[in-house]
């Protein structure tokens, strides 16, 4: 009977089945699905590179691949994961899908630009793929000069072009979100009634718009130096390679907040729904998002502590780097306070949220370690840094991403995922993640350099543990790929609000109609108002 209902009702998925209706769509929900498929593929490829890295590191000798190949492996792992997975991850999928619905809009402000941004990601990916298959690039995802401009014999230009184009995808998404939030809110949807997920994506859009152009122009200069031999960063001409690092990190540090802010937005939604309480200190969390976006632009020099940057500049950047931790900490405190006396249920999305809060805290605190100028001299360019950023990026962002995917899966697809398998996967992810990356803190502190594939034998035990963890983690990621796909056909049909959550997205059918709402709502409720939500049994399985 439920299948019959689905077939009768028109929604965004069955509104046209042709390839053209998907590839020329203006529907933000379809574009979100296109993105979801695309970045899942990128994630798999980036993960494949990671597997090869971890396989090599099982033994102290550099015996699986040559040094040159190893350089390519970690470079491409980084490039794909950062630019083609993490940056688009939450905004392009869940942001695209839900931001308009959450504010009561029919679509984003510029639907065709939204579609263009997806094509740009594809085009950028095509360049990057070409570089990979033609022979790879070995400069590290950071492209430091003069190696990238003068000495590397690999496909630097193709990769740079790919990142450049993907950067414009990011800029257009951010631009679209900013205009949408400013100009398309439904009547009664004031700024402080919006879900915090919207605040997070808005702040992210600001970062995308202000920061990405700088890496774009930096890559243009690298391109010019390689092709036309005009040397902006060339010491032989009196140029300064450190200038490259300044320009590169001016974007790439705020980029990490592009990666984590939307994830934090997801967590706000999850924590509220599964504690059945409004997020504690809503204004503080909202302003913290903006605060992170702003302060995040003032700290990039902490990547240049040992580069030859002046000590005084280093001091300033180190000091400012401590400040950026404050709004992040405020969020963690507020989520925790939300849990207090909440009615907590442990569905899979909530498990990922718990994982995020714990692992992001560790990652964030270790960020403070490396922000200390003196200590960073010891741990920079070691596995300590690698562990730090994987805790925030993977333990943080990827966990939140998975949590959000599970949370909104019934809404997007009209089907529930199998809760038992999902919980098991979450456990694999959590255990695998910690086993992979915790040993890396120790390795780094003991002196294991990053980007090396051969190392002293005394480090082997920790590396083997790390690789074992990576295997478990990989299983934890493969399982959702399977059961989520399975659920599309065999999963239990989902109602409009299986989580008894607040928010406009739960007041439309699952999947939503193409135009989101039959009638544009007039909003009178505050955010996270559960008094109007009928409590259904949450499937805990």
């Amino acid at each position, binding site marked *: 009977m439920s299948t019959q209902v689905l077939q009768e009702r028109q929604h965004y998925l069955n509104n046209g089945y042709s390839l053209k209706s998907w590839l020329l769509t203006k529907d933000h929900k379809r574009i979100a699905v296109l993105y979801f498929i695309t970045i899942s593929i990128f994630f798999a490829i980036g993960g494949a590179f990671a597997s090869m890295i971890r396989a090599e590191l099982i033994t102290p000798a550099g015996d699986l691949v040559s040094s040159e190949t190893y350089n390519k492996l970690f470079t491409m792992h980084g490039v794909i994961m950062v630019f083609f997975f993490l940056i688009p991850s939450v905004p392009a999928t869940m942001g695209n899908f839900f931001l308009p619905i959450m504010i009561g809009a029919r679509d984003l402000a510029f639907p065709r630009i939204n579609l263009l941004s997806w094509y740009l990601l594809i085009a950028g990916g095509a360049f990057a793929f070409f570089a990979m298959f033609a022979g790879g690039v070995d400069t590290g995802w950071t492209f430091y000069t003069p190696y990238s401009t003068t000495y590397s014999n690999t496909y630097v230009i193709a990769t740079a072009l790919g990142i450049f184009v993907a950067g414009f995808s990011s800029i257009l998404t951010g631009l679209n979100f900013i205009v949408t939030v*400013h100009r398309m809110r439904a009547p009664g949807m004031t700024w402080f009634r919006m879900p915090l997920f919207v605040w997070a994506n808005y702040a992210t859009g600001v970062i995308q718009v*202000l920061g990405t152009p700088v890496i774009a122009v930096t890559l243009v200069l690298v391109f010019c130096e390689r092709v036309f031999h005009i040397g902006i960063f060339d010491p032989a001409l009196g140029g*300064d390679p450190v200038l490259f690092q*300044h*320009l590169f990190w*001016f974007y790439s540090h705020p980029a990490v907040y592009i990666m984590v802010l939307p994830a934090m937005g997801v967590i706000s939604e999850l924590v509220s729904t599964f504690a059945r309480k409004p997020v504690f200190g809503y204004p503080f969390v909202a302003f913290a998002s903006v605060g992170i976006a702003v302060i995040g632009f003032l700290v990039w020099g902490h990547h240049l502590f040992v580069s030859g940057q*002046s*000590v*005084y*500049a280093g001091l300033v950047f180190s000091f400012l780097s401590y400040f950026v931790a404050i709004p992040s900490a405020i969020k963690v405190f507020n989520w925790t306070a939300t849990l207090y006396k909440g009615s907590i249920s442990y569905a899979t999305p909530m498990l990922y949220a718990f994982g995020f809060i714990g692992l992001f805290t560790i990652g964030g605190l270790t960020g403070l370690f490396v922000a200390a100028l003196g200590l960073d001299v010891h741990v920079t360019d070691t596995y300590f840094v690698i562990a730090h950023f994987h805790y925030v990026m993977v333990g943080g962002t990827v966990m939140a991403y998975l949590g959000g995917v599970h949370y909104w899966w019934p809404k997007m697809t009209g089907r529930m995922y199998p809760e038992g398998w999902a919980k098991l996967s979450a456990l694999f992810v959590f255990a695998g993640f910690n086993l992979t990356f915790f040993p890396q803190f120790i390795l780094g502190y003991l002196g294991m350099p990053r980007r090396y594939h051969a190392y002293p034998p005394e480090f082997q035990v920790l590396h083997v543990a790390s690789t074992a963890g990576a295997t478990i983690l990989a299983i934890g990621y493969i399982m959702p790929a399977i059961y989520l796909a399975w659920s599309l056909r065999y999963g239990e049909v989902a109602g409009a609000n299986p989580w008894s959550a607040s928010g406009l997205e739960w007041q439309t059918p699952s999947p939503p109609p193409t135009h989101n709402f039959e009638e544009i709502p007039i909003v009178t409720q505050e955010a996270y108002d559960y008094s109007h939500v009928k409590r259904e049994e949450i499937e805990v399985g």
Partner: protein
Amino acid sequence: MSSQTSEHIDSVKTYAAVLVTLLALTVITTLVAFVDLGNFSVVVALAIAVTKMLLVALFFMHVRYSTKLTRLVIVGGLLWLAILLLLTLSDFFTRGWLGTPGR
């Protein structure tokens, strides 16, 4: 239905006056460059350039009639450019202050 009421249509005279001012400022900045003002030269040149920018923005780009949000966006962008320039310069200007080689 006619277009919304806050549509301001400037006169041709206004635009022409702005153009003449811009052209004059261009001549001025070129001539002043040949006068020895020492370090002040660059200040004058930038001041003139900023004036020209303001004229183009306010009159040609209609910022005079724009929303507060537009102005915030413009100011924000210029502020961010300033952050990029100033914080990067903070490195290059303070090199060598410590006295140790390479720092």
